[in-house]
């Protein structure tokens, strides 16, 4: 067993352990922190697959953005231990477990049926930032620009919906501000 394999098993075990922690933890903040660990280990796995861009995006968007958002929500609604409701406990986790096992079985089956092939070195370059960047900003430049407009819409919309209406528009308050 070479070093890469040992490393993969260690990181993967950590990742799965953190994922279990997310689900089983009774305290919401702990779940969020487990999620952070899970995302970080996933990013490490991406790097071992030569997908540095994906790894960076994983850290910035998921570990950085999404987890922070979740923590904000927890802060807003309170971080006490979750109530355990009988109705919730009865069947929902088992249904989730069954679906998870089903998905795992599907993926394993597909993997086992597909013959192992040597890794195409050219395809393996696909996740390197320079390749991603060149593709995005040459062939797909239109999509980048459209996405930029989409984000601008979201930004202006947030401004429109979230800003508290001030008792403005009267000359006096305008002068004060």
């Amino acid at each position, binding site marked *: 067993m070479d070093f890469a394999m040992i490393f993969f098993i260690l990181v993967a075990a950590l990742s799965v352990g953190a994922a279990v922690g997310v689900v089983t933890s009774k305290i919401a903040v702990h779940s969020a922190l487990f999620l952070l660990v899970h995302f970080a280990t996933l990013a490490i796995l991406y790097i071992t697959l030569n997908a540095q861009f994906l790894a960076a995006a994983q850290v910035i968007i998921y570990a950085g953005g999404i987890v922070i958002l979740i923590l904000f929500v927890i802060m807003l609604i309170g971080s006490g231990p979750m109530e355990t409701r009988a109705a919730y406990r009865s069947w929902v986790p088992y249904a989730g477990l069954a679906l998870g096992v089903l998905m795992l079985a599907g993926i394993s089956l597909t993997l086992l049926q597909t013959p192992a092939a040597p890794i195409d070195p050219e395809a393996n370059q696909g996740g390197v930032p320079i390749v991603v960047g*060149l*593709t995005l900003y*040459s*062939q*797909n*430049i*239109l*999509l980048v*620009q*459209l*996405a930029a*407009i*989409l984000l*601008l*819409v*979201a930004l*202006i*919309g947030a*401004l*429109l*919906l979230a*800003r508290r*209406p001030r008792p*403005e*528009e009267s*000359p006096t308050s*305008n*002068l004060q*501000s």
Partner: protein
Amino acid sequence: MNSADLQLNLHPVLPELLMVAATAAVMILDMFNRKGRTPTKAALPWVALVGVLVTAAASIWLIGQPVSSFQGMAINDTRAQALNLVVLAGAALTILLSIRYIPNVNRQTGEYYALILLVSAGMMAMGSATDLMALFLALETFSLGLYILAGLNRTDLRSNEAAMKYFLLGAFASAFFVYGAAYIYGATGSTRFDLIANALFDGKADPSLLAIGVTLLIAGFGFKVSLVPFHMWTPDVYQGSPTPVTAFMSVGTKAAAFAAFYRLFAFALPSEQATWGPVLGALAILTMTLGNLAALRQSSLKRLLAYSSIAHAGYILVGLATATSAGIDGALFYLISYAFMNMGAFAVIILLERQGEMDALGNRLNGLAQRHPQVAMLMSIFMFSLAGVPPFAGFFGKFFVFAAAVSGGYSWLAAVAMLNSAIGAYYYLRIVVNMYFAEPTEETRIEPQQASIPLAFALGISAVFTVALGVLPSLWTNLVQSGALNLVAMR
């Protein structure tokens, strides 16, 4: 890819670029209000309007310069510019309707006009996109903007409900769309319409994956143009949104989504026409029948127009289902005439709305002709046109579409559509009868605070074009059918 091979011709996106520039101008101008020194707020709608008009001029200039750009992701052709003109007409009239109305709903008018411009840009991008990814981004751009505009009145529960409902169902529809796009990519190996078509001609596509993908895409589009059975949200959202936004929604969304429908089916799936033609035909029948029957029983004018817009979506779909050049051109003519007559009808509704109400009941029109003969006359023009009575624009819209259906071998579809127009005529003409022959009640009055010069202007323009396109349909057809060379894909 070598950078020398890149196609970065800006023609297909020039109108969108101009709209974004106008947005920037509005936002920057709006900044000056915050200081309280220069009151530029009143100038905002006019700046936005100038942006729209300049874009329309650019759009007309672009007709006859067909070019595909951005590695086959966007195209400039006559159809794209025709769609742009429909959207721009809708946007310009919406801005005129908003000048008096919107400040009473939400004081942040700068963001409002910016969003109207960006949403229009998204709609226009949808008509020129020839790639599933570009199409999706354009779809999301205008959908997201419309969710927000629907909830513009933050203190009104109906507006909140409209925004929430539209957002949740719209998110579902987008998910359907992306899922469908993924299946089509899986089946054909490309997201570009021309490469998809090539893969299909070569018989390299997996038919079952393709069928699932196209079904999901139809569901996603069907939601946007409120085809039955994806129409449930329409009446509530139309009723709850601020009326100018409703008007814009009904005209712009329809135009954009139908343009994308046409691009997808004509450019990517021409070889499968025998399959999707009848499917679209069946959807058209369901849509117009249910829309018309439900519209018969509405007392709220906005709900009535909501169901009528569902029915009109059905008529337009007839043109697409035939998949002929005449059918598509007919649908485009329908869209432009619908833009003017529907905008006009919504302008009259605005006149009848009480302060803080955002809707009007049908009985407010009773005997309107005795109190306000001019408004009643304009409303009659719009209603006759919506019903498809000559010599108004709506008649030629229906005529072109139905004639295309007959000559395209869809006589059954044309017959059902005619029957439906007869049902539709009943509720449109009932409004006219009530205006002229019913006794005015206490409810019958026009709100002076809604009447404004820009609104009168919008009413006038709508009426003039509704009549002009009905008397001289060649005004439009000469403009947008001069270069019908992009139809190689269709037959």
